């Protein structure tokens, strides 16, 4: 059954997120106690050195790496209580979340159009409807002319745009991006970041971008720094919604 997020509710609310790997002597606390919220229409940048816990919190929010304790609600719907799923996570992901990665991760045997279409078809859209919607998205991102090309024939920027189109296919309330500009030159990286800004502001989606790229700070409504499993709001980038971190 398709769940309908509350439009007034934040895109995502993470409360007392704690993630521990291993146990006993080998226990590693990746995230101590993180609480954050991203509103719809807001684009948030998450910065931090390698091993700081960025990926852990991102995969937790992506519902593929549940927390050891803490809660996650998406669009007002509680989805995780600690490691326990409160909804069908895979169904929830396909209906409400969009993902963009450092590499475009396009399926190599599908054309650009089909790569977008597949995200719609797995969400029960008819092939005809999915094809039409996928073409609309490619047009809106300026790569409709490359719709019939396989990923191998696309430039890095074009591949990333197709990945963005795929992420947006099901009108997600939350888009999670992991280093989306890492493999692009600065000009293309800037274009892609601006695209995320448009997604947040024009499509009313919450967007979280994990990045190292300090040149695009101006794109973000808010910036979070992750260090040693702790999340801090960066000074000068005040939170639209209260963000709190506490030590374990």
């Amino acid at each position, binding site marked *: 059954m398709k769940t309908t997020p509350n439009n007034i509710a934040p895109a995502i609310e993470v409360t007392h997120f704690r993630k521990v790997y291993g146990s006993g002597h080998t226990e590693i606390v990746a995230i101590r106690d993180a609480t954050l919220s991203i509103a719809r229409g807001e684009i948030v940048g998450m910065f931090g050195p390698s091993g700081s816990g960025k*990926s852990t919190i991102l*995969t937790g929010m*992506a519902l593929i790496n549940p927390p050891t304790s803490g809660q996650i609600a998406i669009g007002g719907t509680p989805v995780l209580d600690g490691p326990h799923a409160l909804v069908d996570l895979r169904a929830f992901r*396909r209906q409400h979340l969009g993902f963009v990665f450092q590499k475009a*991760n396009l399926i*190599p045997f599908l054309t650009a159009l089909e790569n977008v279409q*597949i995200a719609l078809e797995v969400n029960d859209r008819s092939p005809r409807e999915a094809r039409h919607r996928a073409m609309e998205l490619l047009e809106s991102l300026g790569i409709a002319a490359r719709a019939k090309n396989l990923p191998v024939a696309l430039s890095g920027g074009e591949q990333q745009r197709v990945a963005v189109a795929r992420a947006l296919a099901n009108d997600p309330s939350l888009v999670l991006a992991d280093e989306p500009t890492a493999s692009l030159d600065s000009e293309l990286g800037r274009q892609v970041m601006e695209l995320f800004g448009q997604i947040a502001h024009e499509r009313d989606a919450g967007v979280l971008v994990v990045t190292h790229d300090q040149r695009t700070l101006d794109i973000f409504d808010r910036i979070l720094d992750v260090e040693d499993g702790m999340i801090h709001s960066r000074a000068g980038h005040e939170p639209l919604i209260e963000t709190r971190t506490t030590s374990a």
Partner: protein
Amino acid sequence: MNLAVRDIRHNAGRFAFTSVGIGLLLMIVMGMGGIYRGLIYDATLLVDRVGADLWIVQGNTRGPFAEVSRISATLEDRVRAVPGVANARRFVSHTIQRTHSGRPLRMVVQGLSWPDDRGDWIPIVAGRALRQAHYEMIADESLKLPLGSHIGLGKNTYEVVGLTRGLVGSGGDGLAFFTVTDAMAIQFDQPGEAVRLERAARRARVEAMDLGRLQPLLLDRAEGLSTGIPAFAEPQVSAVLVTLRPGAAEATVRRTLSTWPDITVYSTQEQKDLLLAGPVDKARRQLGLFRVLLIIISTIVIALIIYTLTLDKIRDIALLKLIGGRNAVIVGLILQQALLMGLVGYGMAWWMGLYIFPYFPRRVLIDPSDLVSLAIIVVAISILASFLGIWKAMSVEPNTVLSA
């Protein structure tokens, strides 16, 4: 959107190459079944075609195919006197190997009971049946003896007057039909020196006897032709074939013949059963086991190929899981590829077999029921083989995409 077909289209060369490999493997499985069928067909061909109602062989033997049978040629006349018997024919069958035109030539020599049997029942594709009592033969094409050609066997030369196609013995050697007399001459041919030594030995034995010394004419007889010595029996034959009168009860004739202690009687079906339970049975079981092994090997090969193909796509599968793709989509991708690979391989096996099997030295008979059975087996092993790939796909975590 059919992901399996799109993936195959993208990797068409690899898929085709793999399918050819699987096809060759399945062609061997198919061929094994065909060889088994051919073995049965060849083994029972002569028994079926010769058109006898009863086979009379040496007592307490399972001859003439399953073991050696030797009975007197005069048995033919005794059998003709039995009520219900329309005809009795001598049957001689033995395999010889000679050298002809510099190559080894193996043939099954069959004796036709001239003049009653001239070979009119034999399916001749070129030439004619026998027209004279000696020095003519009907040969199978597999012997590669052209019509009108001559071949020396023993002390005589025989002309090929008729050709058959696909008439071979249970060992796969081509049949050659002669009159019984010629067949026996070929079978019992001895070098001249051996004949001379035998005659000398006979004379010596007679000379050592009082009768020989008193009757000098006996000495002349002893070193003459063996056929001129009444005490010597005619050479023996392998069997006597009986044709019953229309309406005659087989059971009645058998009951009469069963009182003769020197013979054993078999019906045509019993003769076929003896063949299939005897010489053919071990070959059949061997082929069957080999076939089972090949099917197991095919399953393992397909499983490993599908597993490797799944590993190649593991990031794509993780991505499908991440974007919310149902397990059915992923299972469908792997299962459809396994089935397509199996069925394309099966099709290639059938197609390649059409062109390759005729070159096999033994008959390969592909029965439609075997084709259907193998198709079902291929579907089953394809499904079975996909389990390893499906297990791998199901165990991959969606965050594999993020961590890569």
